[in-house]
Structures are given as C-alpha cells and as structure tokens.
C-alpha cells in the first residue's frame, strides 16, 4: 500500500515537472526561433520587451489570452472548440515515455528519469501522435472556410504519407536494439550511436519528421501564398495559441525521439545525463529553425512523389539490408 502511494506521488511530481518544463521550452522556443531566424537574415528580431526581447513570449501569451475569441457563425461549434484540444493533448502526451537520464537515487528511493517505461514505448509515441492529425483535419473542416478545408486536406494527406516512412525508418533501430522500450534503446547505444549504424534510417527519419510536424520546407498546410493560413485561418485567441503550441510540442517530441534513437539519448561524458539530453535536443531543434530560413517550400505534387516514390522504398530497403546484415553476421 505504502509503495503504491509513493509511486503515485512520485509519478505525479515527475509529470508536473516535465509538463512545466515542456511548456516553458515551448514558450521560449518561439522566441529562439524568431531570434535565430532574424540573425540569419541580418535583423535583430524582438528587442523591446525585456533584455533582447526575453519577455516577449510572456507578452505574446498575455496578448493572446485577452484577444477576442471568435467562432464563425456557420462553424460546427463543438468540433471547432474541440479541434485545438485534440491537436495539443497528444503532442504533450507523447513525451511520457522518453527517458531523460539514468536512474538516480534520492533519500534511498531510486527514481527513473522517465515518466513511465512501457514495453511498447515507441509504438505509444507513434500511436499518440497519429491521433494528433485529427486536430488539424477537424479544425479545418469545422471552420466552414474553403482555405481551411484545403489546408486540412493537404495536411492530412501529407501526414499519413510521411507517417509510414517515419515508422519504417525506426524499425531498423528496433531490430538492432531488440526492444520497443526507449530505455532499452538508449541502453543499447552505450558503445555506438545508432546514427553511425543506421545512417540511411536517420536521413529518412529526419526528412519525414520535418514533414510530420508541417515545418518548412514541408509547410504546405499553411502555405500563406496559396491558402491564407491553412487550417487555422479562422482561429483566434487562445485556440490559435493551442495550435501553435501543438506544433512546437511536436517539434520537441520528434527531436527527443531523434536524440533517443540515433544520438545515444542521455549518454555522454562529464556533464550530467539530463544536460546531455537537453543539449542534443537543442541542436536538433536548431536544425529545424535553420532549415526554415534556408529552403523554399515544396510543390504539392513534388511532396507526394517524394514521400511515396523515394522515402518509402528507401525505408523498406533499409529494413531489408539491416535484416540481411544481422542474419549474416
């Protein structure tokens, strides 16, 4: 009984800390993105609110809360309100199985630096993130706006297409580590990072992760020049902010999965494990921002052709080669 109480308390505290830090990172990620992109384009970015605009996320958040919340008169109201929630909750949930560090012991109680280590870890992440598509689809449909609907349809087609190669690219790693649990995947990278053993899988993962999160150069769902703002054209106030948060939470999730699967997770010398995890994740996120300020947008037919005719066969070939090598060695 006592064990159960301690377990529940510990889990609650862990969830609270992780979600708190996650939300903080999301808020400051927007600041980082604006700053990094500005400096890449020889601008200064936000400078007014606080030192070098450090309080900008708080100012933006307050502004969004106090803005008028508009629901279009012809919209399907329940779905319209539900959509941002469906987009955000899965994005935040998927962080639950990612390990941040080794087991530590405080006051004689050993604490795993992971909210829960389920034996189907990566499947949990894939399942939960696949539900996130509905936020975008239903948001676009319920707005009763043709730009929103077009954005939603594009986005769902894109996300289903790239989800396949995303999942298949991870199978090579799972074959080597012999486990679906993310803790085991990190442990099996003690000697060698999987990015060295599975370079092709990493490239496929990186490309399809960018497409999954609807980021540039795959940001067709919200292509401003064609679709106004895509699926969230009609959204305002906190509902818009929720969609925004979901996008950044997804970036953090795919970066965390990339670190866990290909860059040895929290493993590294000298610094504490959590610091290593955060540094690696920050580099992955920087890569996302870097891409955005470098590449122009894909055309829609190019996107679909690339997903189905290049990435998917490459991912399948990678599985075949990995299997062959594993049988022969």
């Amino acid at each position: 009984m006592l064990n159960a109480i301690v377990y529940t308390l510990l889990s609650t505290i862990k969830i609270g800390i992780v979600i708190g830090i996650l939300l903080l990172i999301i808020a400051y990620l927007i600041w980082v993105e604006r700053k990094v992109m500005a400096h890449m384009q020889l601008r200064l970015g936000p400078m007014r609110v606080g030192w070098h605009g450090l309080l900008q996320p708080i100012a933006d958040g307050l502004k969004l809360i106090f803005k008028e919340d508009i629901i279009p008169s012809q919209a399907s109201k329940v779905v319209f309100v539900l959509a941002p929630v469906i987009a955000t909750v899965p994005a935040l949930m998927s962080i639950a199985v990612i390990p941040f560090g080794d087991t530590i012991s405080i006051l004689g109680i050993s604490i795993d630096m992971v909210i829960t280590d389920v034996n189907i870890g990566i499947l949990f992440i894939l399942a939960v993130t696949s539900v996130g598509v509905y936020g975008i689809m239903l948001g676009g449909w319920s707005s009763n706006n043709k730009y929103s609907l077009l954005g939603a349809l594009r986005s769902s087609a894109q996300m289903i297409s790239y989800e396949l190669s995303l999942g298949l690219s991870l199978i090579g790693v799972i074959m080597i580590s012999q486990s679906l649990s993310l803790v085991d995947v990190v442990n099996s990278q003690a000697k060698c990072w999987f990015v060295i053993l599975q370079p092709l899988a990493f490239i496929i993962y990186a490309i399809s992760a960018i497409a999954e999160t609807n980021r540039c150069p795959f940001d067709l769902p919200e292509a401003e020049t064609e679709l106004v703002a895509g699926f969230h054209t009609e959204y305002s106030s906190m509902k818009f902010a929720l969609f925004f948060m979901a996008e950044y939470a997804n970036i953090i999730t795919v970066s965390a999965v990339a670190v866990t699967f290909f860059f040895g997770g929290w493993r590294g010398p000298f610094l504490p494990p959590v610091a290593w995890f955060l540094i690696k994740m920050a580099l992955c996120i920087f890569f996302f921002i870097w891409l955005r300020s470098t590449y122009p947008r894909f055309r829609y037919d190019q996107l679909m052709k690339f997903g189905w005719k290049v990435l998917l066969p490459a991912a399948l070939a990678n599985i075949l080669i990995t299997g062959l090598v594993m049988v022969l060695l």
Partner: protein
Amino acid sequence: MLAGLLFIIMGLITIVCALCVVFQKNPIYSAIFLIQTMVSLAVLYVLLHAQFIAAIQVMVYAGAIMVLFVFVIMLLNLNKTDVEGDYDKLLFQKPSAIILGFILVVMIGVVTLNTVFQGTQGEYTPESISQIGNTQLVGKMLFTKYVFPFEIASILLFAAVLGAIILAKKQIIKDKEV
C-alpha cells in the same frame, strides 16, 4: 479494484460512442464517435495486458483508417439531403439489417458461451506474458501457430491493393486516350 472501475467506465463510454456512431445524422460526427470507440477499445486492451494490440489499435484504426474515412467524407461534399438521408430508398435495408444483426448477436453469444465462460485458465497468464514480452509473444504466435491465417490475410490485402491500383489506373489510361 481500480482496474474493474476503469473497465466499467471505459465499457460504458465505448457503448455510448458506438450507439452515437449509428444515431448521428452528420457522417463527420459519426466518424468522430467511431474514433472515440476505437480509442476506448484500446484502453480495454490495456486492461487485458495486451499493450501491443492496444497501440496497434490506436495506430492503425484511429490513426490511419479513420483518417481516410474522414478524408473521404470531407471530399464528398455532402449536401443537406444527403446528410439527412433519403428514407424511401432505404426501406428494404431495415428488415434485412435486423435479421442479419440478430443472427450476428446469436453467433457471438453461442461462441462466447462455449469458450470464454468455461472458466479454464489458458497457457498465457498476465505473469507469463510480462515475462516473455507482449510484442515478442504476438510475433512468435503469428509466425508459428497462426502463420497460415496470417499469410491468407496478407494475400487478401495484396489483392485489395492490386484492385485499387487497377481502378486508379483505368482513369489515368482513359485520360491519356482523350
């Protein structure tokens, strides 16, 4: 105790959502309730210590198949009469649906009474499953004991894929001739 309570709550949600799928007039709402039914079923699988099946249930049914459903419903661009239904055309469907539904319920009942309520414990208890590993066990069974049904299912799916490609190709060839 807690698992039992959770089972009752999720079971009720599943049944209510499944009923809503049938009784909603707007197909999009039906689809949304069907998604919720799939997700609650996944929770029931977790309660049965079948985590792998639960994850696959959400990923395949809620995450892929239902996305296509919603996608098609959105593309169909239904107008008001389509949404509210044309009752005259559906007259013959009701009695046949009732008869077939009744037969299905009787079949499920007979099978359930003959197998599940026997009270004998099978080979795979929750303890033994957690020892071998859920995913490993499913994989092993699929490739040894149930390899024949597994291959038949794959041939069936392959035939469906071929059919879809032929249907899509027909349109392209026609367009080229014009």
